[in-house]
Each structure stands twice: as structure tokens, then as C-alpha cells.
């Protein structure tokens, strides 16, 4: 399966009479996009704001971040199973608006939502401060149930990203990257001397607003399976969750998964990137056992030499992570796990809830309990009144002058477990 990603670089975003891309500036017709999102009867009010890198703006509570894209050639469309039909994606050509994103905000859905500061010390901790953001502020109708609110806001983000992506349908990209995965046997014949490596991606699927969707299927309802990496790059996996902001994978993360991208970069040179096994993180012990048995079984069946495992979220998924690691190692396949840490504010506590001697190669995205002070911003998009109650916040987090003292946990993408951010720790 071969995918061409065409990047159109966006350096500014402005409101305009027509939604279009011109001279690296994305112009957005505000009324048109607001009206499109308002078609969903679950919203009382929809507003649109812009937030550019360096501006004194705080966005909170942030639910999802989505990169605008459009299918240019080949089967399927963007966000299959959500916006487009469920045709297989991951081949042909897709154009990407690089440097901008849709951010969904508004009345909080679940208590685990995040903060994006566009400037100041907080901006260093979130990758989304570097993007030109089109922020949807959606207020739900009174009495809307939480899970319906989640769904409505999730879909609003995809709709807006699809709407914006359309501007690039007939444009020539500034840069093109090509990614290809060949059928396994052909790939092994082509690179017989290279170690066969796959990626096990754990998807947050605890339910109660902690869900991820694959071609529209709720990941907790599925057994682990195999997916082409280019399908992930082309929008097959999307976020539907309100798990802790620092280490949840937004839809933007899925589309730009750095584990996938880096494995492609080494493919055919240092290793043979066979493909991706996706698995879930469910709340029943039997599910955890069954799913980790399955990933180990698939890894063995594929004849792998090595596996990278990434986690999403923390706490009980630490057990899924350790089970995956242990069971795959027991098949004689080397593993590296990618996680983050909840090691207390001083970093002295045990980092993960579970452990095993076989988990002997660990990459960390940083300690989510570390405390940071975010100075006041000139403008708030959304509402800061929730910061005392979001995960990572505490009673007294929000100060009178508008500054915020929180754990990194509250910052969207701060300790991402795909390695999307800059934090890590090294042992010497």
C-alpha cells in the first residue's frame, strides 16, 4: 500500500469572505463554517476563534486537535467511518494543510481536558502552540448527556477539518512524501537481512468518554488486529476521548504518529517495517489478558524480531502495557515500550503502576506530575473556570490574576506517549 502525502504549508490564518488558501495563508469564512457546525442540533451556540503562534492566548478546555486534510486521489475519503464511508484508506494521494489545526473547545465534556497556551512557558510544553489554530467553541444544549456531547464535539472537529481541507483539493503541494508498505512476504524477500520490526499501538478504550475509533469501530469492541501504517497516516484512527490531556492521543497525533513516521524512515535501511498491530486498553481483566495474548500471538505469527509498543493514558493501562511487553518478550521477540511517568511532583515515586523485569527497554515522554506556573494571558478562548477540576489541576490552581498552577498533566500533548513532544528522561 502506497500513500503520497502532499503538504501545503500554512503560515497564517485569517478570517475572510471566502474559505481559501493563498500565499500560505488560510482564509476562513467564519459564518459558513459556524453554520456548518450548527447543523448539529445538539449545539446551542457555536463560535469560531483564531489562535496563532506567539499570541497571548490560552485555549481551554481543549478536547481534540485535528489536522485538515483532503483525499485527492485513490479510494476512500478523510476520517473513514466518521465523515467518509468505510472504504479502505492509506493509498493514493492525500493533501495536508501543514501548520494549522482545528481545535475543539467549549463547555467541558469530561474532567480530563487540556490547556493550550500560544505563548509563554506553557507553550513550550504543547506542540499545538506552534500551529495556526482554528478554534471551535461549541456550547451544548442544556440537558445534553455527556456521551452525546462528546460525540457531537468529536464530529464537529472532523467536519471543520474536512471543510478546511477541501481548499487543498486542487492545489499543488509544496512538498510531497511517499510512504509504502509492501505485502509481508514481498517485503521479507526484498530485505532478507534486515530485522523485521512492527509497531504495537495501544488505543485508549476504557469507555466512559475514554474511547478511540478505527474506521468508526469503537476499539474496545474489537480484538487486536493488523493495519497498514499508511491507513493510520490517512485517518483510519481517530480520537474520541477525554482522557488526561498530557498523554492522550488527539486525532492530530494519530495522523502524524511519529513512531510510524520514524519506522518508515528506517525501513529498508536499518530494519524492515512490517506493519502495525493495534490493540485496546479495556477495563475488564479478562479483556486485558485476551488482548495482550492476541498481540503476542500476532507478533509471533508475523515472525517479528522486534516490536515497539506505545501506550495511551496511564494508570490501569500500565498493566496492558506490561502484559503486551512481557508476553511478546516471552515469544523471543525484543520489545521497547514508550510510556510516560506519574512519579510524583518530585519525581521520586514509582513511575508506572505495573512493572516487570522483561520491560528492560523503556522510552519515557516525561513526568506528568511536574508542576508548572502558567502566567496570565491577554485572551482566553473557552473558559478557565474548569482548571481547578481538570486532571492535573487542583483546588486553587486558578489564581486571581488569571495565572494557573497545574501539573503538566493538564497541558495538551505535554507527555505524549508516541514521542510527539520534547520531554524525556535519559539514564546514564
Amino acid at each position: 500500500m502506497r500513500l503520497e502525502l502532499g503538504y501545503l504549508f500554512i503560515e497564517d490564518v485569517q478570517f475572510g469572505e471566502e474559505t481559501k488558501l493563498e500565499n500560505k495563508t488560510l482564509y476562513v469564512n467564519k459564518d459558513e463554517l459556524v453554520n456548518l457546525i450548527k447543523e448539529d442540533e445538539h449545539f446551542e451556540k457555536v463560535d469560531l476563534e483564531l489562535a496563532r503562534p506567539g499570541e497571548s492566548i490560552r485555549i481551554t478546555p481543549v478536547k481534540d486537535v485535528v489536522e485538515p486534510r483532503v483525499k485527492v486521489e485513490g479510494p476512500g475519503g478523510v476520517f473513514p467511518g466518521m465523515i467518509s464511508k468505510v472504504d479502505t484508506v492509506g493509498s493514493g494521494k492525500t493533501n495536508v494543510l501543514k501548520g494549522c489545526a482545528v481545535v475543539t473547545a467549549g463547555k467541558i465534556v469530561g474532567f480530563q481536558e487540556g490547556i493550550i497556551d500560544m505563548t509563554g512557558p506553557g507553550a513550550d510544553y504543547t506542540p499545538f502552540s506552534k500551529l495556526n489554530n482554528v478554534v471551535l467553541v461549541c456550547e451544548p444544549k442544556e440537558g445534553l448527556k455527556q456521551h452525546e456531547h462528546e460525540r457531537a464535539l468529536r464530529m464537529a472537529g472532523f467536519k471543520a477539518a474536512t471543510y478546511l481541507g477541501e481548499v487543498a483539493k486542487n492545489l499543488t503541494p509544496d512538498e510531497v512524501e511517499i510512504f509504502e508498505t509492501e505485502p509481508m512476504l514481498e517485503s521479507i524477500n526484498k530485505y532478507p537481512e534486515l530485522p523485521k520490526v512492527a509497531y504495537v499501538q495501544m488505543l485508549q478504550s476504557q469507555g466512559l468518554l475514554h474511547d478511540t475509533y478505527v474506521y468508526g469501530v469503537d476499539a474496545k469492541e474489537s480484538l487486536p488486529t493488523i493495519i497498514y501504517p499508511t491507513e493510520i497516516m490517512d485517518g483510519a484512527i481517530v480520537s474520541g476521548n477525554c482522557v488526561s490531556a498530557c498523554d492522550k492521543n488527539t486525532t492530530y497525533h494519530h495522523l502524524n504518529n511519529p513512531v510510524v513516521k520514524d519506522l518508515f524512515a528506517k525501513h529498508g535501511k536499518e530494519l524492515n517495517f512490517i506493519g502495525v498491530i493495534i490493540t485496546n486498553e479495556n477495563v475488564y481483566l479478562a479483556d486485558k489478558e485476551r488482548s495482550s495474548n492476541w498481540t503476542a500471538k500476532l507478533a509471533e505469527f508475523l515472525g517479528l524480531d522486534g516490536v515497539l509498543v506505545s501506550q495511551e493514558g496511564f494508570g490501569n493501562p500500565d498493566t496492558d502495557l506490561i502484559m503486551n511487553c512481557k508476553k511478546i518478550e516471552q515469544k523471543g521477540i525484543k520489545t521497547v515500550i514508550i510510556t510516560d511517568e506519574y512519579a510524583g511532583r518530585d519525581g521520586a515515586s514509582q513511575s508506572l503502576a505495573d512493572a516487570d523485569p522483561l520491560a528492560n527497554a523503556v522510552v519515557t515522554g516525561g513526568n506528568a506530575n511536574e508542576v508548572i506556573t502558567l502566567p496570565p494571558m491577554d485572551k482566553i478562548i473557552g473558559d478557565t473556570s474548569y482548571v481547578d477540576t481538570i486532571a492535573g489541576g487542583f483546588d486553587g490552581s486558578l489564581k486571581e490574576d488569571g495565572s494557573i498552577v497545574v501539573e503538566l498533566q493538564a497541558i495538551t500533548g505535554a507527555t505524549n506517549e508516541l514521542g510527539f513532544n520534547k520531554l524525556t528522561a535519559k539514564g546514564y
Partner: protein
Amino acid sequence: MVKEIERAGIPVVHMCTVTPISMTVGANRIVPTIAIPHPLGNPNLDFEEEKSLRRKLVERALKALTTEVEEQTIFEE
């Protein structure tokens, strides 16, 4: 908490869903429960069934509490 209470000489039963974590942290008597969001109940059952389920879990825990153990033990029944 389990370890600190036991250190004070009082036996503890850890009732939890993810028993591997309980094993890792060093609980001695472990009773597996239903699910992480609802360890001691099951919203899918009707009232009477759920009451019976809860009683069984508590009785199993009490039995575990009064059972001598030589090593970390999971009380499946």
C-alpha cells in the same frame, strides 16, 4: 496502603480488578473484582442479582482474610 496496614500487624485483603498490579505492589491476599469503573458491582445486572454478586464478593474477601497464606494469593473463589 495495603502494605502499610499489614506492616502494622493487621491482615488486609486487596479487592481489585487489575490483580497483576496488586501482585506487583505486593498485596498478600487478593480478591479479583468486576471492572475498573465498577469494582464491586455490575450495572448490567438487575438489583437482586447485583446484591447477590456484592454479597459473594464480600464473603469471599472475609474468607480470604481468615485464610493463612504462605505467599501472595489470588482468591478466585
